[in-house]
């Protein structure tokens, strides 16, 4: 029974995006991936939600700046379990070109458990979809 429910439930991964101080390239690509007909992630049952309380898969962009850090961590805690974290773009993964600035506290896996990385600057929508598919696989095991 649990297995069956898992199988059913994994088809409804709702997405939530956190911008941790990114240059907006990844965010624009995320919006493109999530919202436009060409990539239509609704096929996978995904929905872009406005509230962290509704989210299953968290997509984080940006290198985690000093000022946004607390807000991001708080928001992350608000997301109900089980959840999966995907780091989009090189910034959250390693700081990218912004690494070692006085205002950067990342990489993000110092504070938040990351499950999937999608490097790119920014990654193209197809790569983001790859990341989401990978995240769904992990999420299924946690349901």
């Amino acid at each position, binding site marked *: 029974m649990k297995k069956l429910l898992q199988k059913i439930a994994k088809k409804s991964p709702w997405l939530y995006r956190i911008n941790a101080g990114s240059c907006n390239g990844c965010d624009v*690509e995320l*919006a*493109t991936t999530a919202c436009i007909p060409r990539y239509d992630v609704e096929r996978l049952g995904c929905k872009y939600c406005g509230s962290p309380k509704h989210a299953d898969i968290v997509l984080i962009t940006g290198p985690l700046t000093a000022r946004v850090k607390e807000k991001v961590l708080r928001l992350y805690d608000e997301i109900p379990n089980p959840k999966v974290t995907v780091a989009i773009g090189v910034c959250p993964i390693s700081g990218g070109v912004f690494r070692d600035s006085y205002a950067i506290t990342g990489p993000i896996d110092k504070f938040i458990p990351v499950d999937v990385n999608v490097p790119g600057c920014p990654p193209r929508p197809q790569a983001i979809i790859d990341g989401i598919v990978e995240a769904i696989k992990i999420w299924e095991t946690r349901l």
Partner: protein
Amino acid sequence: MSTYTIPVGPLHVALEEPMYFRVQVEGETVVGLDITAGFVHRGMESLALQRNIYQNITLTERLCSLCSNNHPFTYCMALEKIAGIKVPERGEYLRVIADEIKRIASNLFNTGILAHIIGFDSLFMHVMEIREIVQDTKETIYGNRMDLAANTIGGVKYNLSNEKIKYMIKQMDSLKKPLEEIVDIYMNNKLVRARTEGVGILPKEEAIRYGVVGPVARGSGVNNDVRVKSPYAAYDKIKVNVNVETGCDVRARAIVRLRDIQEAINIIQQCLKKLPDGPTCIDYLPEIPAGEAVAKSEAPRGELIYYLRTNGSDMPERLKWRVPTYMNWEALNVMMPGNKVSDIPLIITSIDPCISCTER
């Protein structure tokens, strides 16, 4: 009615990027605004001093992905001024083409987001779908959908073969018709008009006083388009029609942006027609002497300026830039009061806020 404060942000769905507004409202009417910024402050100006001139090309491009091309472009112009490098003519034309392509994509994104904010998701999707034509063009010609990486010191890194020119002409042509259709919708659709007309008024005198730039200024009847006022690259050889609207509201700004897209297509076509033969870039590694220079360009959001100081080494002594959106934030204090709570995100979007640009 009592006054209370509602927080917008910092991580708010309507904002592509984190920014924190404390809006004082009376009932549903806005009476005051307080902006807290800095969530995307990455200390880039200090980073720029720790990187060499080449690394800074890529670093400045990562300032913001929506106007990404303008940053390395203007930075390179400043460097070239100091070093006295003459960019090959073909390179200058190619720079203009890259710039205008980004302008189309950026403005389409902003107008799309405007539709999204007023809950018109179908229109948003439609506009974004049109934008995909531009995205494909960028990916085919430059290799990335957002960061073109077209510029380098002394020219551009890409070239246009005859097939690519043909492809580009085809893509630009295929943009025209759907574009006319959405311009019509933004201008005349009853609902869009009802939401955008008379909202977020910025009178001309205030626009001048706050020193706003780009479509925000042009929507209020102020023309300070750098492409015409102080031409750079190949803009002195090209005819640029500046679109100025006098509505001073959200609608006027959206129309300026849409007209700018049409003008950008026009400019690209002019460039492709006039494109001279020859090299695209200098073929030696530049020597940068000590000196200082300012370079300006018209980014999708308006005037962008770079100030560069060098000391003879291959790292800048000071690299300072002021992005267009930077000037437009304070003007929100004029636009907001008197409008409804529903219009807050709409007005914020109408200045095409680029927070990562502003805060660096």
